[in-house]
C-alpha cells in the first residue's frame, strides 16, 4: 500500500521546496524478526501439493502467541523477565496551549515510576529522527505550545508493575482535568504537504504518441496559496509550463462544450475512517544501558524502517547505542502499521524503563486517538461525454485530502488517488490533481486503497449518473469507454499485460442481477410496501505495487533433496507465507521442507543502497549502478498488495534459476549415464520439456527421477545447489547479466545473485563461498528501468466489478444488502481460498466505508479519546450478505499468466456499487460517503 518510502517521499518534498537531509547510522542495525511458531502439521499439504490450510493456521486457531501483541518480556529469549508498562496521555485540544499534567488524582501509590514530558526529551537530546514533517516536529507537546494535532501525546507514564499501571490508567482515562491547558492560541499544524497534477492530451487516438503526458513530459508540482494548490504558470517553456498550457486547453474545451455533450460536474466527499485492525498498535522495548543494545518487539509492516529510524533516534540522543535488535511478530494493519510513528513512542518508553523492558500497547480508545487513518478526500470532478457516441471526451478531477497534523504519506496518497481516478476508462484528455492538506486532525497514512478507493468510487458514481442522464445502459456506457490493452493511462504509460475489463463488462451485462433488475424492482416493491429495491454496479481497476518494489528470496537443497526456502516477507494476515511456499512448489515440484520468513540478515547479499529509487536522477543512477553491489532499494514494506506478484517474483526467479542451473544439468547428467550417452541419447529432449511435480523430475519420456536423486547428483558434481536473488521493480523489472562459474553468462530479471555449490565442488570453487557459505556474483551488467518511468505512476492493474443488490426502507432509511456478486481477474491464482477470502473480506470493509464507518475530523473526532466500536460501527455479518454473496474469477489466459495483487481492489467496487444501487432504489444520488440511514431519511423527507 505504501507507494513511496518515507525517505523517497521526503525527497519528493525537495522538489516542492522542502529541504531534507537524512543520514544513516553506520553502527550495526540488526533487525531480526521472530518467526512465530506457525509450524504446520504434517498434513498441511494435500496430495496434489495444494495447501489444506494456511501455513500459520494451527498456531492461529489454537491461540499460540503469534501477534507482536501477544509477547511479554518473559517470552523473549535473553530479556529480563520483569515487564514494565507504559501509557500516554493525550491532548484533546489543539487551540489552547498545553500547561502540564495534573496527576494528583493518582495519590502517592499510583504515581508513575517515571513521568516523561517533552522537556525531558529535550534534556536527553531526543528529537524526532526524521527531518521534515513526516512524523511531525515533536513527539510530545511542549509546555506553552499547542498540540500539532488532536490526540497528540503530552506525557508518557511508565510503571514497573502491571497492577498500578492498570489502576492508574483507569483513573486518568476520560478525566479532562488531567491534561491542563492555558490560553487560546492558533493551531500549530505543519504547512500543507504537497500538490501534484497529471495532465494528458492524447495524440488523436489511444495508440498515437501523446501530445502531453506525465510520462513523456512531467508531473506538475505545485505549492499552496492558502488552502488551495498554486500551480506554475502556463507557457511554452519548461515541461511544467507546457503541462499547464495543456490543462488550460482542456479547461477551455470543457467551458466551450455545446449541446452535443453532457458536461457533468459534481463534488464528492469520501470520509476519514479508522482501519480498525483488530490488533491495536503495540510494542515492547528493552533498552539495556550497560550494553547500549536497544531490543525491540513491535507490531509493524515496515520493520526495516523502524530499525533504521530507531537507530537514528537513539544515536542522536544522550543514550548510548551499540545495536538495534528488532523483532516483529505477525501483525495486521491494512497499511496503517506501515511507517507509523507509534513504534518510536515505544522506543521512548524503553529508554525510560530504567533498564527494564517496557510495553506500550494501545487500547481501542487510544488506537482511535492516534492510529493512522484513511484520508478524507474532497473531489471536484468534471466529466464530458459526447452524446452521439457516448464516448468520454475529457475528465478532470481536483482533489484535496486531509492528512492531519503529521505529513506521513499524505502527499503520495493524494497523487496516487489522482492517478487512479480514471478507473477503467480510456480518457483522451484528462487533468487530475491531488493536494495534501495539513490540519489538526489525527494523522492519516497508508491505508488499504491508498487514495484510490476515494477517487475511483467517485468516478464510478459519476459514470452511473451520466448513464442515467444520457439514457444509456450503465454497462453499455462503460463498454463504450473501456480501457483496453495497449492504451495509455492518464500518466501516459501503457499498463502491463492484457486488460480484461471488456470481458468482465460483457459477463456483467448478462448477469441476472443486471438483466432482470427492473422486473425484480417492480415485483419486489409491489410485494414489499415501504421498501425500495435497487441493483448497482461498480467496476474498478487498482494498481498494485509502489514503483520501487524490492525483495530477496533464497532456495537451496541438500544432498537428499530437502528444500529450504527463505524470504524477507513476513505475515500480515494475507497468507503470503503460504503462497510463497506454494509458488516454490509450482516450479520445483515440491513445497519447501523448511521455510524461513521475515529473514532480515542476508550475509550473501552485501548490497549497498541509497534508498532513493523515486528521486535519483538518471545520471546519478547510471553512475551508481556501475557498482555491482548497488541497488536502488533493499526491500519493501509488507503491504497486502505487493506479496504475490512482487515478493513472489523473487521467489519465482530463485526457483527458476535453481531449475536452470541445478536441476536441469544434474538430471541431464543422470539421464546421460552409461554407454552411448544413456537413456537420453536416442531422444531429443529440450529444457522446456522439463516437468517437476510431486517430488519427481520428468522430461520427454525419460526415466522419472526423484528430486532427491537429482539433488544428490548436483551435490556430487559440485553444481549449484542454492540460489539467492534480489529483485527490483520500477513499474518494470531490473535485469542483470551474471557470469556464473561453470554455467556461463546468464541474464536474469533480478539485480543481484548469490550462489551456493554442492558438496563435491572443487576447493577453489568452495573457496568462493565466503559469505556465510555463499558466493555473491558481481553482475556483469545491469539494466534498471529508466528513472523517467517513475512518472508512469502505475503500470500493473487488477480489475474487479461488483453488483450490489439492496433494499432501502424508506421509513427508517436503513439499507440492507440482499446479495452481491463480483467478477475479478487476477491472473493465475496461487491459493484460490486465499483469493476468495480476500474478496469476501475486502467487500465487508467496503460495505463499512459505503454505509457505516465515519469519523469527524476535528474536535469531536477520534483525537478526543472517546471513540470505540460502540459508536464507530463496523460491518457485521448481517451487513455483508454473508450467505448470499458470490464471486467469479476469470480463468487466466494461459497457465503462464502472472498472479496479480488484489488485496486492495477487492474492497473498492462494492462502494460505488452500493451508492449506485441506492440511487436506483430511491431515485436520489449521494455525493458524500457514507450513505447513512439518516442521510437517506433526509433525502426522502
Amino acid at each position: 500500500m505504501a507507494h513511496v518510502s518515507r525517505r523517497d517521499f521526503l525527497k519528493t518534498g525537495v522538489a516542492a521546496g522542502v529541504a531534507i537531509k537524512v543520514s544513516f547510522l553506520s553502527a550495526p542495525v540488526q533487525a531480526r524478526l521472530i518467526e512465530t511458531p506457525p509450524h504446520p502439521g504434517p498434513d498441511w499439504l494435500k496430495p496434489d501439493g495444494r495447501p489444506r490450510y494456511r501455513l500459520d493456521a494451527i498456531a492461529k486457531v489454537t491461540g499460540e502467541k503469534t501477534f507482536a501483541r501477544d509477547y511479554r518480556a518473559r517470552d523473549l529469549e535473553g530479556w529480563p523477565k520483569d515487564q514494565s508498562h507504559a501509557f500516554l496521555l493525550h491532548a484533546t485540544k489543539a487551540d489552547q496551549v498545553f500547561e502540564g499534567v495534573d496527576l494528583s488524582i493518582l495519590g502517592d501509590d499510583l504515581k508513575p515510576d517515571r513521568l516523561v514530558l517533552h522537556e525531558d526529551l529535550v534534556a536527553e537530546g531526543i528529537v524526532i529522527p526524521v527531518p521534515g514533517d513526516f512524523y511531525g516536529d515533536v513527539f510530545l507537546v511542549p509546555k506553552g505550545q499547542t498540540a500539532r494535532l488532536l490526540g497528540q501525546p503530552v506525557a508518557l507514564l511508565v510503571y514497573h508493575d502491571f497492577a498500578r499501571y492498570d489502576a492508574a490508567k483507569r483513573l486518568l482515562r476520560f478525566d479532562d482535568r488531567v491534561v491542563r491547558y492555558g490560553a487560546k492560541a492558533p493551531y500549530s499544524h505543519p504547512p500543507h504537504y504537497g500538490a501534484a497534477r497529471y495532465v494528458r492530451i492524447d495524440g488523436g487516438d489511444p495508440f498515437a504518441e501523446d501530445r502531453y503526458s506525465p510520462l513523456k513530459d512531467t508531473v506538475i508540482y505545485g505549492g499552496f496559496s492558502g488552502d488551495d494548490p498554486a500551480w506554475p504558470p502556463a507557457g511554452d517553456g519548461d515541461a511544467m509550463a507546457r503541462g499547464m498550457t495543456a490543462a488550460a486547453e482542456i479547461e477551455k474545451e470543457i467551458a466551450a462544450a455545446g449541446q452535443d455533450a453532457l458536461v457533468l460536474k459534481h463534488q464528492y466527499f469520501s470520509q476519514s475512517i479508522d482501519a480498525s485492525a483488530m490488533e491495536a498498535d503495540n510494542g515492547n522495548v528493552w533498552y539495556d544501558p550497560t550494553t547500549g543494545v536497544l531490543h525491540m518487539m513491535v507490531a509493524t509492516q515496515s520493520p526495516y524502517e523502524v530499525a533504521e529510524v530507531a537507530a537514528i533516534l537513539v544515536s542522536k540522543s544522550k543514550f548510548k547505542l551499540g545495536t538495534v535488535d528488532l523483532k516483529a511478530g505477525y501483525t495486521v494493519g491494512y497499511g496503517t502499521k506501515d511507517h507509523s510513528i507509534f513504534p518510536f513512542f515505544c522506543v521512548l518508553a524503553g529508554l525510560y524503563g530504567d533498564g527494564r523492558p517496557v510495553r506500550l500497547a494501545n487500547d481501542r480508545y487510544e488506537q482511535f486517538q492516534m492510529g493512522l487513518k484513511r484520508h478524507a478526500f474532497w473531489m471536484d470532478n468534471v466529466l464530458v461525454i459526447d452524446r452521439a457516441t457516448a464516448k468520454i471526451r475529457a475528465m478532470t478531477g481536483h482533489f484535496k485530502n486531509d492528512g492531519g497534523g503529521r505529513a506521513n504519506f499524505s502527499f503520495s496518497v493524494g497523487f496516487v488517488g489522482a492517478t487512479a481516478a480514471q478507473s477503467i476508462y480510456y480518457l483522451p484528455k484528462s487533468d487530475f490533481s491531488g493536494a495534501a492538506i495539513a490540519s489538526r486532525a489525527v494523522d492519516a497514512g497508508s491505508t488499504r486503497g491508498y487514495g484510490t478507493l476515494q477517487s475511483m468510487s467517485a468516478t464510478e458514481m459519476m459514470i452511473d449518473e451520466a448513464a442515467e442522464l444520457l439514457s444509456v445502459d450503465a454497462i453499455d456506457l462503460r463498454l463504450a469507454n473501456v480501457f483496453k490493452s495497449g492504451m495509455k493511462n492518464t500518466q501516459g504509460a501503457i499498463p502491463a499485460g492484457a486488460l480484461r475489463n471488456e470481458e468482465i463488462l460483457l459477463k456483467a451485462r448478462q448477469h441476472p442481477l443486471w438483466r432482470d433488475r427492473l422486473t425484480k424492482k417492480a415485483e419486489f416493491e409491489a410485494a414489499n410496501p415501504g421498501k425500495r429495491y435497487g441493483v448497482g454496479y461498480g467496476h474498478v481497476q487498482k494498481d498494485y505495487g509502489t514503483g520501487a518494489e524490492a525483495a530477496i528470496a533464497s532456495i537451496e537443497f541438500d544432498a537428499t533433496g530437502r528444500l529450504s526456502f527463505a524470504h524477507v516477507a513476513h505475515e500480515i494476515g494475507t497468507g503470503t507465507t503460504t503462497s510463497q511456499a506454494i509458488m516454490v512448489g509450482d516450479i520445483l515440484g515440491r513445497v519447501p521442507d523448511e521455510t524461513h520468513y521475515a529473514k532480515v540478515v542476508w550475509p550473501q547479499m552485501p548490497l549497498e543502497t541509497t534508498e532513493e529509487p523515486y528521486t535519483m536522477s538518471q545520471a546519478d543512477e547510471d553512475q551508481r549502478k556501475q557498482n555491482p553491489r548497488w541497488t536502488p532499494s533493499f526491500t519493501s514494506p509488507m503491504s497486502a498488495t505487493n506479496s504475490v506478484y512482487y515478493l513472489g517474483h523473487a521467489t519465482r526467479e530463485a526457483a527458476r534459476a535453481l531449475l536452470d542451473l541445478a536441476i536441469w544439468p544434474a538430471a541431464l547428467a543422470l539421464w546421460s549415464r552409461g554407454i552411448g550417452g544413456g537413456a537420453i541419447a536416442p531422444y531429443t529432449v529440450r529444457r522446456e520439456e522439463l516437468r517437476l511435480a510431486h517430488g519427481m523430475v520428468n522430461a520427454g519420456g525419460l526415466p522419472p527421477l526423484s528430486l532427491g536423486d537429482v539433488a544428490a547428483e548436483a551435490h556430487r558434481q559440485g553444481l549449484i545447489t542454492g540460489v539467492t536473488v534480489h529483485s527490483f521493480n520500477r513499474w518494470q523489472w531490473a535485469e542483470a547479466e551474471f557470469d556464473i562459474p561453470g554455467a556461463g553468462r546468464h541474464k536474469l530479471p533480478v539485480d543481484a545473485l548469490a550462489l551456493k555449490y554442492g558438496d563435491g565442488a572443487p576447493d577453489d570453487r568452495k573457496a568462493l563461498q565466503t559469505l556465510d557459505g555463499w558466493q555473491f556474483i558481481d553482475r556483469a551488467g545491469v539494466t534498471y528501468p529508466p528513472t523517467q518511468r517513475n512518472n508512469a505512476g502505475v503500470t500493473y492493474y487488477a480489475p474487479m466489478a461488483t453488483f450490489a443488490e439492496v433494499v432501502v426502507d424508506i421509513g427508517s432509511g436503513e439499507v440492507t444488502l440482499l446479495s452481491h456478486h463480483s467478477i475479478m481477474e487476477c491472473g493465475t491464482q496461487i491459493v484460490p481460498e486465499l483469493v476468495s477470502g480476500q474478496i469476501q473480506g475486502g467487500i465487508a470493509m467496503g460495505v463499512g466505508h459505503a454505509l457505516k464507518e465515519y469519523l469527524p475530523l476535528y474536535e469531536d473526532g477520534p483525537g478526543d479519546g472517546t471513540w470505540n466500536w460502540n459508536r464507530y460501527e463496523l460491518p457485521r455479518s448481517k451487513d455483508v450478505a454473508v450467505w448470499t454473496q458470490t464471486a467469479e474469477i476469470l480463468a487466466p489466459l494461459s497457465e503462464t499468466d502472472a498472479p496479480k495483487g488484489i488485496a486492495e481492489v477487492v474492497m473498492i467496487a462494492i462502494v460505488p456499487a452500493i451508492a449506485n444501487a441506492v440511487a436506483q432504489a430511491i431515485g436520489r444520488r449521494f455525493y458524500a460517503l457514507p450513505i447513512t440511514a439518516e442521510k437517506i431519511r433526509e433525502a426522502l423527507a
Partner: protein
Amino acid sequence: MTIALKKLSLTVNGKAIDPVDVPDTMMMQDFLYEYLNLTGARMGCGQGICHACTVIVENDDGTLAEMRTCITGAHWFEGRKVRTIEGHAKRDASGAITQLTPVQQAFIEHFSFQCGYCTPGFVTGATVLLDELKRKPVARADLERTISEALDKHICRCTGYVRYYEAVRDVILNTPGLIKA
C-alpha cells in the same frame, strides 16, 4: 489511592489455579495475560463489543457459556471453570497439539481467517453454539439464521465472515444430533 487486592482461585483449562492476589478492579483479560501468560483471548475493544476476548465458562450442569473477559472482572470467575482458546485442542504431555476440535479443524480447512486475531473468539462462540445445539437441535431450514444470530456479535475485519460461517455450518451438518430429524 491504594489497590485493593483479593484472593482469586479458579480452574483454567483443567488446571486449578492456586489462590493469587488480584486487584479488585482487574478485568479477566488482564489476569489471563499478565498473570497466567494466556494471551489467546484477545483484546479488541475493551467494551464488550467485538467478542475477540471471549472464553468459555464450563457450568456445573455441563453446559457452556461464552463470557467477555474485557468487561468482566477477574473475580467474577472465582471458583469457576474456564476454558480459554489454549485449552480447546488436545495436547500431549509436552503441550504439543495432538488433535484440534472439529470447530478448529473446520476453520483451518475453510481458510476462515487471515490475520487470525479474532479467531479465538470465533472458536469460542462456535463451540458454545454447538453445545447449545446438542440440547436444542435446529431445523435445517433455520441453520444459517441460527449461525448468524449466534455469531453476529463477533467482529472479523479481514475475511468478511463467510468462511467462518460456512465452516460452522459444515461442522453442524456433520455432527449427529444437531439438526432436527
